[in-house]
């Protein structure tokens, strides 16, 4: 087994990304979709921080990760508000039944 390096972190991130994507695609419940999104964001964050560690660009990567976290917080807040509204409007939060956009 090789010494843990950049690739390991990237692979972990890749897994997280894949699971997140899976949740986004397959899950009907909007909140689970949101959770998937969070996973994808975390995958990205890991990459940022990993690259920050294994390159000579200083702490810029970490800073990006921080920004992403902040954005994620904002996104979560808005998304939940939307989800609540959807719930109020439709009585459920199943994204596959919400296809008013089709018109």
């Amino acid at each position, binding site marked *: 087994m090789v010494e843990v390096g950049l690739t390991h972190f990237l692979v972990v991130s890749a897994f997280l990304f894949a699971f997140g*994507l899976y949740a*986004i*695609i*397959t899950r009907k419940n909007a909140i689970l*979709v949101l959770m998937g999104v969070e996973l994808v964001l975390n995958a990205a964050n890991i990459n940022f921080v990993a690259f920050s560690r294994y390159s000579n660009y200083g702490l810029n990567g970490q800073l990006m990760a921080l920004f992403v976290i902040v954005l994620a917080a904002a996104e979560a807040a808005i998304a939940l508000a939307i989800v609540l509204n959807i719930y109020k409007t439709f009585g459920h939060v199943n*994204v*596959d039944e*919400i*296809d*008013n*956009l*089709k*018109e």
Partner: protein
Amino acid sequence: MSESSLISLAVTILLLPLVGFFIVLLFGKRFEHLYKLEVGIISVALLLSIYAGFVKLTSYVNDTIIAQFTWIDLGNVPTIGHLTVNLGIMIDNVTIIMLFVVTLISALVHYFSIAYMKGDIRFSRYFAYLGIFTFSMLGIVIADNLLMIYIFWELVGLSSYLLIGFWYEKKSASDAGMKAFLTNRIGDIGMFIGILILFTNYHTFSFTEIFNHISNGVVPFGSNGWLTAAGILVFMGAIGKSAQMPLHVWLPDAMEGPTPVSALIHAATMVAAGVYLVARIFAMLTADAMLVIAVVGAVTSIFAASIALTQNDIKKVLAYSTVSQLGYMVMALGVGAYTFAFFHLVTHAFFKGLLFLGSGSVIHSMHHEQDMRNMGGLKRKMPITYITFLIATLAISGIPFTSGFLSKDGLLAGTWAFGNLTGHYLIPIIGFTVALMTAFYMFRLVIMTFHGEPRNQHKYDHAHESPKLMTIPLIILASLSIFIFYTPNPVAPADGWFYNWVKAPQTVVPEEARFEFMKSESHEIEGTVNNDSHGGSGSGSATITHSEMYEHAMHAVHYPAMILSIILAGLGILFAFLMYHWKKIDADKLAEKLKPLYNLSYNKWYVDEIYSFLFIERLLDFSRFISWFDATIVDGIVNYSATFTRGVANITGWFDTYIVDGLVNFTAFVSGFVGLSFRKMQTGKVQTYIVYVVFSVIIILLVLRPF
């Protein structure tokens, strides 16, 4: 009294009725007795015009008084110079006599109407209308220029319209008013063009200035033909207003108006305005124009007389009689008998006014019965009306000792002289024939109305003599139909004062455009006959009234004409008595024998029908066509071009959707998968889209193969 105060007097007389009109029109409804103001005003105007006439005929008998003011100032016009439009007042003997005639008949009609119109719902408005009519008529009389005549000419038309259609609830009345106005307008267009020809050349409307220009040899557009045209065109106004052929159709219909109005407007004054106008432009009429005028007058007189022979409506007979007499006057002007034409205008005004008022009196007492076949024997019930009516009938028939005899005799002598001088004998022949016919139909009227036994006992029983307000005007007018007011010698009008007051103006047209007998070389004995006369309304410096040759010719035929006219009048009266009083000749049988002629006459030669068919219907058709054309073709083109534009847009849009876009779609279809799934892919579900993204990424990855 100075000349300027005479002018102010004339202006006062002119404006008084206008003031009356406005006051009565605006406040007549509130104050029921306001009509008395109008009656008072017209009486004052009458007194003033008598006074003015007295002053003028004693102090200024040979003068023409003119006062002008600038109405429109058009400034310094390029190529013409300083251009102004002036209005003005001209007072000569003709004016002053007309002032008197108009105000007198107007005043009498006012009095008469008080009784006649009693109880009408628009009683005071009626007097207001009479006021504006009097105003406009006086305006024509005192105008010194064509423009002002035209202005008042139209105003007279307006008041005529208002008065004919006074009982506008009746469709026939409002139709008649409209017909009168429109028929007159046709003549007015001609008159206006004539005025425009003169203005374009002389830049003035004033008679005196125009005559000065012409006498200086300046003819319109450099040709005598245009001068003739101008004369005839201005005369067209007279054709309309004086109801000459072929525009006479309005006058009989105008009898729809109240009868006193017929007396005032359609017998005595307004219709005479045409004659007055021709008299005013007499000096500039060329030989050709005069001949046209004479022919129009002659044709009109015999044509109308032929219709009057068979009419049964008392007012219709009088109406056609009026047309016929107006034709007489016009004819007299055309042949150059200026003085007698004007003389006849005045005498006719009185006796025709009297006839109409008399018929009004009859109609009033018969409760608006106008058909003579329902009358008869009225002379016992209405002696005053009868006597006065008879005097007027004698006058119009030309029986000696009446005013009509004097004027008609001179007039006929004039036509005869004209025939002798030029060879146009048809005109005097027509003149004398009409004299016969006039006597006949007028006595037919008198006999059917007043003589014999009542044909409608019920109406007869209710008939009664009219009140004093109506009979006194009749008496006044009847006395004015006696010769003594005009001349001391009942057979020689030339001895009278009237003859000396009114002299034919010296013609100003170029020598070559005059009648042979009016040329100046024929003035060999110039100044011996009329050395005291004055140049009338023409140039102030002219000393000759008319060509001597004509005067002499007239003198020569004076007595033969007189005797002939008396014989003819007597014959006419005799026939009338034979047919209608003594019934020696059966009128109905005669009518049966001459059926086609009778029908023509009875149906007024079908002129109305012909006009209606030829012009009115066609005009309405044409206007409907234009309207259709406008809505369908012109607007259609507009709408079509809009539709066309939209069509093009649609085609473009279709092309865009099906051809251009279709090509794209077709390409997509060929490439397969994408094209087919285009619609299905749009599920509206977020997740589906993400799936596409994922697959896209996968595909990209597989294609790029970065690994």
